[in-house]
């Protein structure tokens, strides 16, 4: 549905998007991830024909953005970073204007307005001026205008920013329910959002593509390991984390141990174990046998967040103030 080849955007002084290539199948929800200034918005603007690429090509819904922009524009719905609202218009009037712009008319237009204002929960502000809406409502109206003409491809730049938790969930559900018929690209900083709703992730950093894969693969691929969180307490009200790390490092199957939180009496460690080594029993035994108390032991999935930080190089893989001990392994 979307094929991007060597897409590049150069501004006067910097290169915002640098030879990015990816492909998105029909019906997929794709998360577009990257730190601030990575080039997400710029890429989306090129896909929506707002900005022409400096080099490379993008084919959206079967048409080239440079050669047949009109055909592309007919088939996309776009929610820019700031919802493009006319402050003096009322919500209903605005949706009707956008719907007509996209080529809807008559009964169909009316029916679509009713449908999107219900889906995006803006029905109660239809008679209100857009300039007087709260940030969250503006975002919702922005989303409503993006889907009003039932486009094949939806491009959403941070669709859940500024929404309340309930609305975030509803918006995520809405996006999920739109998949199938629609191909959706959304950019976000919220990594759990990607884990929840996206099938594929595209991670870019400083304009370069750093990873593109399915969410499942990406999670699995990360170090091929499982994470276990362990909270250990000392019996006499004092605990030497280094001693714990040394002891746990001897358990077979442990890759490394990171001190997550340190208190005088107890500390939390993140233990990375090799895949398919079920070491939780061994860990528990080792702790108890050494004379400490085991407060908590649970498995923590490798979060996308860490993969993200690792891949985009925003932070070193192991935070600096924490001790990393190489376990004996095998």
């Amino acid at each position: 549905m979307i094929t991007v080849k060597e897409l590049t955007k150069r501004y006067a002084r910097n290169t915002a998007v640098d030879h990015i290539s990816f492909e998105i199948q029909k019906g997929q929800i794709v998360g577009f991830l990257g730190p601030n200034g990575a080039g997400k918005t710029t890429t989306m603007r090129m896909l929506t024909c707002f900005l022409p690429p400096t080099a490379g090509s993008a084919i959206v819904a079967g048409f080239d953005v440079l050669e047949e922009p009109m055909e592309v524009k007919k088939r996309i719905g776009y929610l820019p970073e700031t919802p493009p609202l006319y402050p003096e218009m009322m919500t209903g009037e605005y949706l009707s204007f956008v719907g007509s712009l996209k080529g809807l008319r008559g009964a169909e237009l009316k029916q679509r307005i009713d449908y999107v204002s219900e889906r995006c929960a803006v029905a109660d502000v239809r008679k209100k001026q857009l300039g007087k809406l709260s940030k969250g409502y503006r975002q919702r109206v922005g989303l409503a205008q993006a889907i009003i003409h039932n486009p094949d491809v939806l491009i959403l730049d941070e669709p859940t920013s500024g929404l309340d938790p309930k609305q975030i969930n509803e918006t995520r559900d809405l996006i999920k329910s739109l998949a199938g018929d629609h191909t959706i690209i959304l950019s976000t900083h919220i990594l759990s959002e990607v884990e929840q709703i996206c099938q594929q992730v595209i991670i870019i950093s400083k304009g370069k593509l750093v990873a593109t894969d399915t969410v499942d693969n990406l999670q699995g691929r990360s170090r091929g390991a499982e994470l276990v969180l362990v909270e250990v307490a000392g019996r006499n009200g004092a605990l030497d984390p280094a001693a714990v790390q040394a002891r746990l490092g001897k358990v077979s199957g442990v890759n490394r141990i990171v001190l997550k939180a340190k208190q005088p009496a107890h500390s939390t460690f993140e233990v990375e174990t090799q895949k398919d080594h079920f070491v939780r029993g061994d860990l528990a035994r080792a702790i108890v046998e050494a004379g400490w108390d085991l407060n908590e032991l649970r498995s923590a999935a490798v979060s996308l967040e860490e993969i993200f930080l690792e891949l985009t190089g925003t932070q070193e893989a192991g935070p600096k103030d924490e001790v990393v001990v190489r376990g004996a392994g095998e």
Partner: protein
Amino acid sequence: MRNVWLIWRKEMRSYFVSPIAYILLLMCALIFGFFFWSLLQAYLQFSMEAQMRGEMFPMNMPEEITRRLFGNIPVTGLFIIPLITMRLFAEEKRTGTIELLTTSPIRDGEVILGKWLAATTMYCCLLFLSAINVAFLFFYSHPDWKPILVSYLGLLLQGAALLAIGTFISTLTKNQIIAGAATFGACLLIFVCGWVGEYNSETWARVLAYLSVSTHMESFTRGTLDSKDAIYYVTLIVVGLFLTARSMESLRWRS
């Protein structure tokens, strides 16, 4: 064509939802009313004095009044045109709604035409206010209505040309105030540059005089429709709108 109508309607609404339309209408009503009233007073007094001296009043009063009134309207227009056009594109760029327009299946040309037509319509509303004054003359006398109509056509063409230039300038910035000020400067320049032709007949002065909007107004106010002058205004409109289209295109390449 449907899209032009759509944009036109949106622009008209936004003129009349915000106070700007009403301020302009009120301003013009007062200014045109004042011009008209003071001209009328002057001529009434003049004719009374003439009668007291037992002379015939030598001038055709209604014609003299409309001629002077129509001479004043373009000057008022210089102040009003920037106020009409300054927000057209600058505001869309500032609030980001330009992103909606340029990613919708609508041509740049349709957007530009819709906006410029809306501005011209707004200008027509203001001209109409002066026409109300002129209509009073028909109660007291029987002026020839043909030259009046031709004058209005000239005023409309001149306004439309300056509005096209204002539309172009509005695409150059995100800031309405800058767009307004620059439009005022540009309109004033293109208005007064014809004055050099009055005391200088060298080639460059004649060219400048030809390029100026003010020198092409005379034939219209005399009531004679000169196609050369009409063509000049139409050309100016086309150039203004063409520049707008180019600017809208390059706006994307640049930013």
